[in-house]
């Protein structure tokens, strides 16, 4: 067994993943990215100067 195989085998992603992830909240979907991309108390300058980021997926209602 190579080191790569060994390290892959010790991860056991699946067992962990099935407990906290499911179809409604799948792996790869962040669930709490709720803070807006703007500075304190509505200051927009920082937002205008900074590069755009991908849209946050947000938290599914449950």
């Amino acid at each position, binding site marked *: 067994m190579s080191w790569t195989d060994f390290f892959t085998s010790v991860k056991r992603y699946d067992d962990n993943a099935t407990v*906290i992830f499911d*179809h*409604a909240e799948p792996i790869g979907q962040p669930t*709490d*990215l709720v803070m807006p991309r703007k500075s304190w108390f509505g200051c927009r300058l920082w937002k205008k100067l900074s590069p755009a980021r991908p849209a946050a997926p*947000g*938290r599914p209602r449950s």
Partner: protein
Amino acid sequence: MNKPAELTEEPTIREAEVTTSEVERVERALIDASTRLPVLVFYTSAIAWLLLATLLGCLTSFQMHSPDFLSGASFLTWGRVHPAHLNALIYGWGSMAGMGTAIWLIARLCRTTLRHPLLLISGAAFWNLGVLAGILGILAGYSTGYEWLEFPGFAAVILFVAYLLIMTWTLVMFRYRRRGHVYITQWYLLGAFLWFPWLYAAAQVMLFIVPVQGVMQAAVNWWFANNLLFLWFGSIGLGTAYYMIPKVIGRPVHSYYLAAIGFWTFAVFFSWTGMQRLIDGPFPAWMITASIAAMILGLIPVATVGLNHHMTMRDHFPLMRYSPTLRFTVFGAIAYTAFSVVGVIISLRSMARIVHFTEASMGYTYMGLYAFFTMVIFGSMYYIVPRLVGREWRYASLIKLHFWGATYGIGLMVLLLLVGGFVQGLSLNDPTLPFDETTQSVLPYLRGRTLAWILLSVAHLVFAFHFGLMLLGFGRTASVPTFLNPLEGRPEGGH
């Protein structure tokens, strides 16, 4: 020829996925609805105790450099206010908030609804009664004098009965869990719920019911205090972090086996600690050495947990900007590593001889109790409360104010107490210095600590106000995505 078949099959698969997803959402909503009332009762009580602990903390801190302040009233003297503050923080805030988070996490991870929540609510009511009776007892002068066990006997009995109610219901939930695989968070939370009665009952029996003799009382006392910090608060904090970090970033924990090694070494090594606080005391050398060795070996679980969290978070650190839960939890997880390393350093005989009877000891306690545990619990509350009340946090600015107030407050306090404690220790060990000069040497650090408490007070008041808005239904009712996402052109009011 195959194309029409694919076209007819594709919608069927999608419908099945949507259905499964909807079922899981409804299931999750039912679990959250069943835990709503008890968890909110725990959280509301915890925040009330946090505000009281903050007020008493400010008072004790001010009295350390201005001892005449409110010295006319016996119940407001430092000797009573300080233990009242610590017990309000430990049993009022920390334990109640931790149990609230643990109940919600266990219900979610066991995928089982909480039946008969009134039992848990009555447990919370009894716990509140016990803490109230204990703090009033301390302020009235009935403290037992043992560190972190100052509550008079009648309060301890009420607390223990309340705890049995809460623990029983938590174990029942675990017994009737739906899935076979037990997640890392469940190990830590179950461990915490079983360790606490062992620690508390053993300490009560060995100190008050069938008291051990002489200096062994100090040994029992410090074994209890140190283990309460690690096995009770530490377990709940780590268990919560193991859920929140992967869940928020949408990525499973890096290594299951690393987590298993971390958990079992945590359980084995940290239960031996405590005696290192009695270095150079009248104890057998092996007792103290065993605790020092256990603290050093404790770096194994700390390293495994730290490595696991770091590898899970790798490439996802920028997400901390967008998630209140993640920023508090990651701060707490980093603080856990720092807390453990500082614990080892101040446990070494050469260092302990300097900082032993100084403010550094308090700095270490606040590192564990606040910088690690409280910050992780704040993070979990930012995650859980919106799911319980069905609304989003109202003001992002208040979340930031809370985070930075708490971060700067606890950072300043820990830094000042550790450095001040070291300076104080060097002065105390210098036989040429008169005692009043050693006291003078630490005064600037103590004044700085009051400033840190003011920052923490602001943070706590802001959080309590925000939580109150959520309870009263003034939270945001935005649909997915939940908070504001200006880049998607959604409405932005309320800031």
